[in-house]
Protein backbone atom coordinates (compact mmCIF):
# COMPACT_ATOMS: atom_id res chain seq x y z
CA UNK A 1 0.00 0.00 0.00
CA UNK A 2 1.31 3.46 -0.84
CA UNK A 3 2.16 5.92 1.89
CA UNK A 4 -0.65 8.04 3.34
CA UNK A 5 -0.83 11.77 2.68
CA UNK A 6 0.17 12.27 6.30
CA UNK A 7 3.31 10.17 5.95
CA UNK A 8 4.27 11.87 2.71
CA UNK A 9 3.82 15.39 4.12
CA UNK A 10 5.78 14.45 7.23
CA UNK A 11 8.57 13.04 5.10
CA UNK A 12 8.81 16.32 3.17
CA UNK A 13 8.81 18.45 6.31
CA UNK A 14 11.31 16.15 8.04
CA UNK A 15 13.65 16.41 5.09
CA UNK A 16 13.40 20.19 5.22
CA UNK A 17 14.01 20.22 8.97
CA UNK A 18 16.88 17.72 8.65
CA UNK A 19 15.07 15.36 11.05
CA UNK A 20 13.94 11.77 10.87
CA UNK A 21 10.20 11.47 10.06
CA UNK A 22 9.69 9.70 13.39
CA UNK A 23 10.79 12.87 15.17
CA UNK A 24 8.09 14.99 13.52
CA UNK A 25 4.79 15.15 15.39
CA UNK A 26 1.51 16.46 14.00
CA UNK A 27 1.40 18.90 16.94
CA UNK A 28 4.63 20.58 15.89
CA UNK A 29 4.62 24.03 14.36
CA UNK A 30 7.07 24.92 11.61
CA UNK A 31 8.92 27.01 14.17
CA UNK A 32 9.21 23.95 16.42
CA UNK A 33 10.81 22.12 13.51
CA UNK A 34 13.20 24.99 12.77
CA UNK A 35 11.77 25.57 9.29
CA UNK A 36 12.19 29.24 8.37
CA UNK A 37 10.36 31.19 5.67
CA UNK A 38 12.63 30.13 2.83
CA UNK A 39 12.49 26.54 4.07
CA UNK A 40 8.71 26.76 3.99
CA UNK A 41 8.77 27.93 0.38
CA UNK A 42 10.94 24.97 -0.50
CA UNK A 43 8.64 22.59 1.41
CA UNK A 44 5.63 23.96 -0.45
CA UNK A 45 7.41 23.36 -3.73
CA UNK A 46 8.06 19.76 -2.65
CA UNK A 47 4.39 19.33 -1.69
CA UNK A 48 3.29 20.63 -5.09
CA UNK A 49 5.65 18.24 -6.83
CA UNK A 50 4.69 15.28 -4.64
CA UNK A 51 0.91 15.64 -4.92
CA UNK A 52 0.58 17.47 -8.23
CA UNK A 53 -1.39 20.29 -6.64
CA UNK A 54 -1.15 24.08 -6.64
CA UNK A 55 -0.71 25.39 -3.12
CA UNK A 56 -2.31 28.83 -2.63
CA UNK A 57 0.52 30.46 -0.73
CA UNK A 58 2.12 33.89 -0.94
CA UNK A 59 5.34 34.24 1.03
CA UNK A 60 4.69 37.98 1.47
CA UNK A 61 1.53 37.38 3.47
CA UNK A 62 1.62 33.79 4.73
CA UNK A 63 -0.99 34.55 7.42
CA UNK A 64 -3.53 35.59 4.75
CA UNK A 65 -3.01 32.55 2.56
CA UNK A 66 -5.79 30.01 2.23
CA UNK A 67 -3.23 27.33 3.04
CA UNK A 68 -3.09 26.73 6.81
CA UNK A 69 0.49 26.28 8.00
CA UNK A 70 -0.08 26.67 11.74
CA UNK A 71 0.97 23.10 12.51
CA UNK A 72 2.00 19.87 10.83
CA UNK A 73 -1.57 18.59 11.28
CA UNK A 74 -2.96 21.75 9.65
CA UNK A 75 -0.64 21.35 6.67
CA UNK A 76 -1.67 17.69 6.26
CA UNK A 77 -5.34 18.74 6.39
CA UNK A 78 -4.76 21.50 3.85
CA UNK A 79 -3.02 19.12 1.48
CA UNK A 80 -5.83 16.59 1.82
CA UNK A 81 -8.25 19.40 1.00
CA UNK A 82 -6.31 20.32 -2.14
CA UNK A 83 -6.21 16.69 -3.27
CA UNK A 84 -9.96 16.36 -2.71
CA UNK A 85 -10.64 19.60 -4.60
CA UNK A 86 -8.55 18.39 -7.52
CA UNK A 87 -10.43 15.07 -7.62
CA UNK A 88 -13.85 16.79 -7.51
Amino acid at each position, binding site marked *: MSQSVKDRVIRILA*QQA*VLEPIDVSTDHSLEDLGIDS*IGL*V*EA*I*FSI*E*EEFDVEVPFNANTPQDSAFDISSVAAIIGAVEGLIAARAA
Partner: protein
Amino acid sequence: MKRVAITGAGTINALGHTVEQTHAAMAGGHCGVGPLDLRDADRLQVRIGAQVKGYDEDEHWSRQQIALYDRFTQFALIAAEQAVAASGLKFEGDLADRSGAIIGTSGGGLSTQDENFRLVYEDGKNRVHPFVVPRLMANAAASHVSMIHGLRGPSYAVSTACASSNHAMGQAFHMVRSGAAPVILTGGSEAMLCFGGIKAWEGLRVMSRDACRPFCATRNGMVQGEGAAVYVFEEWDHAAARGADILAEVVGFAMTSDASDIVMPSQDGAARAISGALRDAGIAPADVSYVNAHGTGTAANDRTECAAIAQVFGDHAANLMVSSTKAMHGHCIGGTGAVELLACLMALRDGVVAPTIGHQKADPECPLDVVPNDARDARVEVALSNAFAFGGLNAVLALRRA
Protein backbone atom coordinates in the same frame (compact mmCIF):
# COMPACT_ATOMS: atom_id res chain seq x y z
CA MET B 1 48.07 54.99 -0.81
CA LYS B 2 48.43 51.56 0.72
CA ARG B 3 50.46 48.70 -0.72
CA VAL B 4 48.49 45.57 -1.60
CA ALA B 5 49.69 42.06 -0.74
CA ILE B 6 48.31 38.72 -1.89
CA THR B 7 48.28 36.55 1.22
CA GLY B 8 46.19 33.60 0.11
CA ALA B 9 45.14 31.77 -3.03
CA GLY B 10 42.70 29.00 -3.82
CA THR B 11 41.37 27.33 -6.94
CA ILE B 12 39.49 24.53 -8.56
CA ASN B 13 39.83 24.11 -12.32
CA ALA B 14 40.49 21.46 -14.93
CA LEU B 15 44.16 21.27 -13.95
CA GLY B 16 43.59 20.65 -10.27
CA HIS B 17 41.46 21.13 -7.20
CA THR B 18 44.12 23.12 -5.33
CA VAL B 19 46.78 25.72 -6.08
CA GLU B 20 49.52 23.12 -5.59
CA GLN B 21 47.94 20.70 -8.07
CA THR B 22 47.36 23.49 -10.57
CA HIS B 23 50.93 24.76 -10.32
CA ALA B 24 52.27 21.24 -10.75
CA ALA B 25 50.09 20.77 -13.83
CA MET B 26 51.12 24.14 -15.27
CA ALA B 27 54.78 23.41 -14.65
CA GLY B 28 54.35 20.00 -16.25
CA GLY B 29 52.51 21.38 -19.28
CA HIS B 30 49.47 19.19 -18.65
CA CYS B 31 46.36 19.59 -20.73
CA GLY B 32 42.98 19.67 -18.99
CA VAL B 33 41.02 19.60 -22.23
CA GLY B 34 39.09 16.47 -23.11
CA PRO B 35 35.80 15.13 -24.45
CA LEU B 36 32.83 16.91 -22.87
CA ASP B 37 30.83 14.81 -20.46
CA LEU B 38 27.39 16.39 -20.39
CA ARG B 39 23.79 15.76 -21.39
CA ASP B 40 23.07 15.89 -25.12
CA ALA B 41 26.75 16.24 -26.01
CA ASP B 42 25.92 14.30 -29.20
CA ARG B 43 23.95 17.35 -30.39
CA LEU B 44 26.98 19.61 -30.04
CA GLN B 45 29.41 20.39 -32.82
CA VAL B 46 32.05 21.38 -30.29
CA ARG B 47 32.60 18.36 -28.07
CA ILE B 48 35.74 19.27 -26.15
CA GLY B 49 36.28 21.41 -23.10
CA ALA B 50 38.33 21.72 -19.93
CA GLN B 51 35.90 20.38 -17.36
CA VAL B 52 36.61 20.05 -13.67
CA LYS B 53 36.93 16.29 -13.25
CA GLY B 54 36.71 14.11 -10.18
CA TYR B 55 34.35 16.56 -8.53
CA ASP B 56 31.21 15.29 -6.82
CA GLU B 57 29.10 18.08 -5.35
CA ASP B 58 27.51 15.65 -2.87
CA GLU B 59 30.92 15.12 -1.27
CA HIS B 60 31.32 18.84 -0.63
CA TRP B 61 27.86 20.09 0.20
CA SER B 62 24.62 19.21 1.95
CA ARG B 63 21.33 18.91 0.09
CA GLN B 64 20.30 22.34 1.40
CA GLN B 65 23.54 23.91 0.20
CA ILE B 66 23.25 22.34 -3.24
CA ALA B 67 19.71 23.75 -3.49
CA LEU B 68 21.26 27.21 -3.21
CA TYR B 69 24.70 26.81 -4.84
CA ASP B 70 25.03 26.70 -8.61
CA ARG B 71 28.23 25.05 -9.79
CA PHE B 72 29.88 28.47 -10.23
CA THR B 73 29.08 29.34 -6.61
CA GLN B 74 30.41 25.97 -5.45
CA PHE B 75 33.68 26.59 -7.27
CA ALA B 76 34.01 30.10 -5.82
CA LEU B 77 33.35 28.86 -2.29
CA ILE B 78 35.93 26.08 -2.60
CA ALA B 79 38.55 28.51 -3.90
CA ALA B 80 37.72 31.11 -1.25
CA GLU B 81 37.94 28.55 1.53
CA GLN B 82 41.42 27.53 0.42
CA ALA B 83 42.53 31.16 0.07
CA VAL B 84 41.31 32.18 3.51
CA ALA B 85 42.84 29.10 5.11
CA ALA B 86 46.18 29.84 3.42
CA SER B 87 46.08 33.47 4.56
CA GLY B 88 45.51 32.53 8.20
CA LEU B 89 43.00 35.39 8.52
CA LYS B 90 39.97 35.27 10.76
CA PHE B 91 37.30 37.81 9.99
CA GLU B 92 36.04 39.27 13.25
CA GLY B 93 35.10 42.68 14.60
CA ASP B 94 36.27 45.71 12.64
CA LEU B 95 38.16 43.57 10.11
CA ALA B 96 34.96 41.69 9.27
CA ASP B 97 32.93 44.91 9.10
CA ARG B 98 35.29 46.46 6.54
CA SER B 99 36.31 43.45 4.42
CA GLY B 100 34.41 42.13 1.41
CA ALA B 101 34.24 39.85 -1.61
CA ILE B 102 34.44 41.01 -5.23
CA ILE B 103 34.00 38.06 -7.56
CA GLY B 104 33.97 38.13 -11.35
CA THR B 105 31.68 35.96 -13.43
CA SER B 106 30.31 36.17 -16.92
CA GLY B 107 27.48 33.65 -16.95
CA GLY B 108 26.69 33.48 -13.23
CA GLY B 109 24.36 30.56 -12.61
CA LEU B 110 24.06 29.68 -16.27
CA SER B 111 23.76 25.94 -15.55
CA THR B 112 20.83 26.67 -13.25
CA GLN B 113 19.13 28.65 -16.02
CA ASP B 114 19.90 25.92 -18.52
CA GLU B 115 18.45 23.16 -16.33
CA ASN B 116 15.32 25.10 -15.46
CA PHE B 117 14.64 26.34 -18.99
CA ARG B 118 14.83 22.70 -19.97
CA LEU B 119 12.23 21.81 -17.34
CA VAL B 120 9.70 24.42 -18.43
CA TYR B 121 10.32 24.48 -22.20
CA GLU B 122 11.42 20.95 -23.07
CA ASP B 123 9.82 18.91 -20.32
CA GLY B 124 6.68 21.07 -20.15
CA LYS B 125 6.79 21.48 -16.39
CA ASN B 126 4.87 24.40 -14.95
CA ARG B 127 6.83 25.02 -11.79
CA VAL B 128 10.48 25.30 -10.89
CA HIS B 129 12.34 25.07 -7.62
CA PRO B 130 11.91 28.19 -5.44
CA PHE B 131 15.64 28.90 -5.36
CA VAL B 132 16.18 29.30 -9.09
CA VAL B 133 16.63 33.07 -8.76
CA PRO B 134 19.03 33.10 -5.79
CA ARG B 135 20.94 30.27 -7.46
CA LEU B 136 21.35 31.86 -10.89
CA MET B 137 22.04 35.48 -9.93
CA ALA B 138 25.50 36.69 -10.88
CA ASN B 139 26.23 37.90 -7.35
CA ALA B 140 25.41 34.52 -5.76
CA ALA B 141 29.08 33.57 -5.49
CA ALA B 142 30.13 36.91 -3.96
CA SER B 143 27.21 36.78 -1.56
CA HIS B 144 27.84 33.23 -0.37
CA VAL B 145 31.56 33.95 0.04
CA SER B 146 30.62 36.94 2.19
CA MET B 147 28.21 34.84 4.26
CA ILE B 148 30.55 31.89 4.82
CA HIS B 149 33.46 34.10 5.86
CA GLY B 150 31.46 36.78 7.65
CA LEU B 151 32.60 39.62 5.39
CA ARG B 152 30.34 42.59 6.13
CA GLY B 153 31.98 45.32 4.02
CA PRO B 154 31.83 45.92 0.25
CA SER B 155 30.87 42.81 -1.75
CA TYR B 156 29.61 42.55 -5.29
CA ALA B 157 29.92 40.75 -8.60
CA VAL B 158 31.70 42.09 -11.65
CA SER B 159 30.61 40.95 -15.07
CA THR B 160 32.67 41.97 -18.07
CA ALA B 161 32.70 38.73 -20.06
CA CYS B 162 36.23 37.37 -20.40
CA ALA B 163 37.73 40.23 -18.37
CA SER B 164 35.38 39.79 -15.38
CA SER B 165 38.05 38.37 -13.08
CA ASN B 166 40.62 41.02 -13.92
CA HIS B 167 38.11 43.81 -13.48
CA ALA B 168 37.05 42.27 -10.16
CA MET B 169 40.62 41.94 -8.93
CA GLY B 170 41.37 45.45 -10.16
CA GLN B 171 38.46 46.78 -8.13
CA ALA B 172 39.69 44.85 -5.10
CA PHE B 173 43.16 46.31 -5.65
CA HIS B 174 41.72 49.83 -5.77
CA MET B 175 39.65 49.22 -2.68
CA VAL B 176 42.58 47.99 -0.60
CA ARG B 177 45.04 50.52 -2.02
CA SER B 178 42.73 53.41 -1.23
CA GLY B 179 42.15 52.23 2.33
CA ALA B 180 38.45 51.62 1.74
CA ALA B 181 38.87 48.00 2.84
CA PRO B 182 41.72 46.19 4.63
CA VAL B 183 41.02 42.85 2.93
CA ILE B 184 39.05 41.80 -0.13
CA LEU B 185 38.53 38.22 -1.28
CA THR B 186 38.62 38.50 -5.03
CA GLY B 187 38.92 36.52 -8.23
CA GLY B 188 36.36 34.89 -10.45
CA SER B 189 34.31 31.83 -11.15
CA GLU B 190 32.61 30.32 -14.17
CA ALA B 191 30.70 27.12 -14.89
CA MET B 192 29.05 27.42 -18.26
CA LEU B 193 29.97 24.02 -19.65
CA CYS B 194 26.35 23.04 -20.02
CA PHE B 195 24.47 22.31 -23.25
CA GLY B 196 23.10 25.85 -23.67
CA GLY B 197 26.37 27.47 -22.66
CA ILE B 198 28.31 25.61 -25.31
CA LYS B 199 25.60 25.98 -27.97
CA ALA B 200 25.78 29.74 -27.52
CA TRP B 201 29.55 29.77 -28.04
CA GLU B 202 29.23 27.44 -31.04
CA GLY B 203 27.16 30.11 -32.70
CA LEU B 204 30.10 32.49 -32.84
CA ARG B 205 32.14 29.98 -34.89
CA VAL B 206 35.30 30.71 -32.97
CA MET B 207 35.58 27.37 -31.22
CA SER B 208 38.18 24.73 -31.94
CA ARG B 209 37.09 21.14 -32.32
CA ASP B 210 40.47 19.67 -31.44
CA ALA B 211 42.59 21.87 -29.17
CA CYS B 212 43.44 25.41 -28.10
CA ARG B 213 46.82 26.38 -29.62
CA PRO B 214 47.39 30.04 -28.80
CA PHE B 215 49.89 31.92 -30.99
CA CYS B 216 50.45 28.82 -33.12
CA ALA B 217 50.24 29.03 -36.92
CA THR B 218 47.90 26.02 -36.92
CA ARG B 219 45.51 27.36 -34.28
CA ASN B 220 41.82 27.10 -35.02
CA GLY B 221 40.01 28.67 -32.13
CA MET B 222 39.29 28.65 -28.45
CA VAL B 223 38.28 25.88 -26.06
CA GLN B 224 36.02 26.57 -23.12
CA GLY B 225 36.99 25.71 -19.58
CA GLU B 226 35.46 26.15 -16.17
CA GLY B 227 36.61 26.81 -12.65
CA ALA B 228 37.44 29.45 -10.12
CA ALA B 229 40.33 31.09 -8.37
CA VAL B 230 40.05 33.39 -5.37
CA TYR B 231 42.76 35.45 -3.66
CA VAL B 232 43.14 37.34 -0.44
CA PHE B 233 44.11 40.91 -1.29
CA GLU B 234 45.34 42.43 1.96
CA GLU B 235 46.72 45.78 2.94
CA TRP B 236 50.49 45.24 3.05
CA ASP B 237 51.16 46.62 6.53
CA HIS B 238 48.25 44.62 7.94
CA ALA B 239 49.73 41.47 6.40
CA ALA B 240 53.29 42.27 7.48
CA ALA B 241 52.21 43.10 11.04
CA ARG B 242 50.77 39.64 11.51
CA GLY B 243 53.70 37.94 9.84
CA ALA B 244 51.65 36.68 6.89
CA ASP B 245 53.29 34.81 4.02
CA ILE B 246 53.03 37.31 1.17
CA LEU B 247 52.73 35.54 -2.18
CA ALA B 248 53.16 38.64 -4.35
CA GLU B 249 52.41 42.34 -4.43
CA VAL B 250 49.74 43.81 -6.67
CA VAL B 251 51.33 46.98 -7.97
CA GLY B 252 49.27 48.23 -10.89
CA PHE B 253 46.01 47.98 -12.74
CA ALA B 254 44.46 49.64 -15.74
CA MET B 255 41.28 49.26 -17.68
CA THR B 256 40.36 50.66 -21.06
CA SER B 257 37.49 50.36 -23.50
CA ASP B 258 37.92 49.94 -27.25
CA ALA B 259 34.68 51.80 -27.89
CA SER B 260 34.63 50.27 -31.35
CA ASP B 261 33.30 46.74 -31.87
CA ILE B 262 31.31 44.29 -29.76
CA VAL B 263 33.46 41.27 -30.67
CA MET B 264 36.57 42.33 -32.59
CA PRO B 265 39.49 43.35 -30.36
CA SER B 266 41.48 46.52 -30.80
CA GLN B 267 45.26 46.82 -30.66
CA ASP B 268 44.98 50.34 -29.34
CA GLY B 269 42.61 49.41 -26.51
CA ALA B 270 44.81 46.49 -25.44
CA ALA B 271 48.01 48.56 -25.67
CA ARG B 272 46.51 51.38 -23.61
CA ALA B 273 45.51 48.90 -20.91
CA ILE B 274 48.99 47.32 -20.79
CA SER B 275 50.82 50.63 -20.72
CA GLY B 276 48.28 52.00 -18.25
CA ALA B 277 48.98 49.18 -15.81
CA LEU B 278 52.72 49.82 -16.05
CA ARG B 279 52.21 53.54 -15.50
CA ASP B 280 49.91 52.87 -12.55
CA ALA B 281 52.58 50.62 -11.04
CA GLY B 282 55.40 53.05 -11.76
CA ILE B 283 57.24 50.29 -13.58
CA ALA B 284 59.39 50.64 -16.69
CA PRO B 285 58.51 48.26 -19.53
CA ALA B 286 62.02 46.82 -19.35
CA ASP B 287 61.38 45.58 -15.79
CA VAL B 288 58.66 43.18 -16.97
CA SER B 289 59.79 39.67 -17.81
CA TYR B 290 56.55 37.66 -17.97
CA VAL B 291 53.16 38.39 -19.49
CA ASN B 292 50.33 35.96 -18.97
CA ALA B 293 48.55 36.61 -22.23
CA HIS B 294 44.85 36.64 -22.87
CA GLY B 295 45.87 34.26 -25.69
CA THR B 296 42.54 32.71 -26.60
CA GLY B 297 43.73 30.85 -29.69
CA THR B 298 41.57 32.86 -32.05
CA ALA B 299 43.26 34.60 -34.95
CA ALA B 300 41.69 37.93 -33.99
CA ASN B 301 42.89 37.91 -30.39
CA ASP B 302 46.33 36.47 -30.82
CA ARG B 303 47.47 38.78 -33.59
CA THR B 304 45.99 41.85 -31.96
CA GLU B 305 47.48 40.99 -28.58
CA CYS B 306 50.94 40.38 -30.03
CA ALA B 307 50.80 43.68 -31.89
CA ALA B 308 49.72 45.47 -28.70
CA ILE B 309 52.59 43.93 -26.72
CA ALA B 310 55.06 44.91 -29.43
CA GLN B 311 53.66 48.44 -29.43
CA VAL B 312 54.04 48.88 -25.66
CA PHE B 313 57.35 47.11 -25.12
CA GLY B 314 59.20 48.00 -28.32
CA ASP B 315 62.58 46.26 -28.46
CA HIS B 316 62.02 44.73 -25.01
CA ALA B 317 59.18 42.63 -26.47
CA ALA B 318 61.86 40.25 -27.78
CA ASN B 319 63.05 39.64 -24.19
CA LEU B 320 59.59 38.97 -22.78
CA MET B 321 58.16 35.58 -22.02
CA VAL B 322 54.51 35.64 -23.12
CA SER B 323 52.48 32.51 -22.49
CA SER B 324 48.83 31.59 -22.66
CA THR B 325 47.82 28.97 -20.15
CA LYS B 326 44.38 28.65 -21.80
CA ALA B 327 45.76 25.75 -23.82
CA MET B 328 45.91 23.86 -20.51
CA HIS B 329 42.88 24.99 -18.47
CA GLY B 330 40.69 26.23 -21.30
CA HIS B 331 39.09 29.64 -21.50
CA CYS B 332 37.35 29.92 -18.14
CA ILE B 333 35.50 33.03 -19.41
CA GLY B 334 34.59 35.15 -16.38
CA GLY B 335 36.89 33.11 -14.14
CA THR B 336 39.80 32.98 -16.53
CA GLY B 337 41.86 35.95 -15.33
CA ALA B 338 41.75 34.59 -11.81
CA VAL B 339 42.87 31.10 -12.83
CA GLU B 340 45.59 32.66 -14.98
CA LEU B 341 46.89 34.80 -12.14
CA LEU B 342 48.07 31.50 -10.65
CA ALA B 343 50.62 31.33 -13.47
CA CYS B 344 51.85 34.81 -12.53
CA LEU B 345 52.22 33.74 -8.88
CA MET B 346 54.14 30.64 -9.97
CA ALA B 347 56.50 32.77 -12.08
CA LEU B 348 57.08 35.34 -9.34
CA ARG B 349 57.31 33.00 -6.38
CA ASP B 350 58.64 29.73 -7.75
CA GLY B 351 60.58 31.09 -10.72
CA VAL B 352 58.71 28.78 -13.09
CA VAL B 353 57.08 30.25 -16.19
CA ALA B 354 54.08 28.25 -17.43
CA PRO B 355 54.27 27.21 -21.08
CA THR B 356 51.93 27.69 -24.02
CA ILE B 357 51.28 24.03 -24.77
CA GLY B 358 50.12 22.53 -28.07
CA HIS B 359 52.52 24.75 -29.98
CA GLN B 360 53.30 23.27 -33.37
CA LYS B 361 54.53 26.02 -35.67
CA ALA B 362 55.45 29.66 -35.17
CA ASP B 363 53.07 32.25 -36.58
CA PRO B 364 54.95 35.16 -38.21
CA GLU B 365 52.19 37.44 -36.94
CA CYS B 366 52.96 36.40 -33.36
CA PRO B 367 56.73 36.93 -33.22
CA LEU B 368 57.11 36.63 -29.45
CA ASP B 369 58.69 34.11 -27.10
CA VAL B 370 55.51 32.24 -26.22
CA VAL B 371 57.35 29.72 -23.98
CA PRO B 372 56.32 26.91 -26.33
CA ASN B 373 55.35 23.54 -24.84
CA ASP B 374 57.77 23.39 -21.90
CA ALA B 375 57.84 25.41 -18.71
CA ARG B 376 60.94 27.47 -18.11
CA ASP B 377 62.90 28.40 -15.02
CA ALA B 378 63.44 32.13 -14.79
CA ARG B 379 63.68 34.82 -12.17
CA VAL B 380 60.67 37.07 -12.68
CA GLU B 381 60.42 40.38 -10.84
CA VAL B 382 57.31 41.75 -12.52
CA ALA B 383 54.50 39.88 -14.27
CA LEU B 384 51.45 41.16 -16.11
CA SER B 385 48.11 39.45 -16.63
CA ASN B 386 46.09 40.49 -19.67
CA ALA B 387 42.35 40.14 -20.15
CA PHE B 388 40.52 41.51 -23.16
CA ALA B 389 36.77 40.96 -23.22
CA PHE B 390 34.08 40.87 -25.83
CA GLY B 391 32.58 44.29 -25.77
CA GLY B 392 36.05 45.81 -26.00
CA LEU B 393 36.67 45.95 -22.25
CA ASN B 394 40.32 45.47 -21.33
CA ALA B 395 41.84 44.95 -17.89
CA VAL B 396 45.51 44.38 -17.08
CA LEU B 397 47.06 43.67 -13.68
CA ALA B 398 50.71 44.12 -12.72
CA LEU B 399 52.26 41.99 -9.97
CA ARG B 400 55.70 42.19 -8.35
CA ARG B 401 57.72 39.55 -6.57
CA ALA B 402 57.32 39.87 -2.80
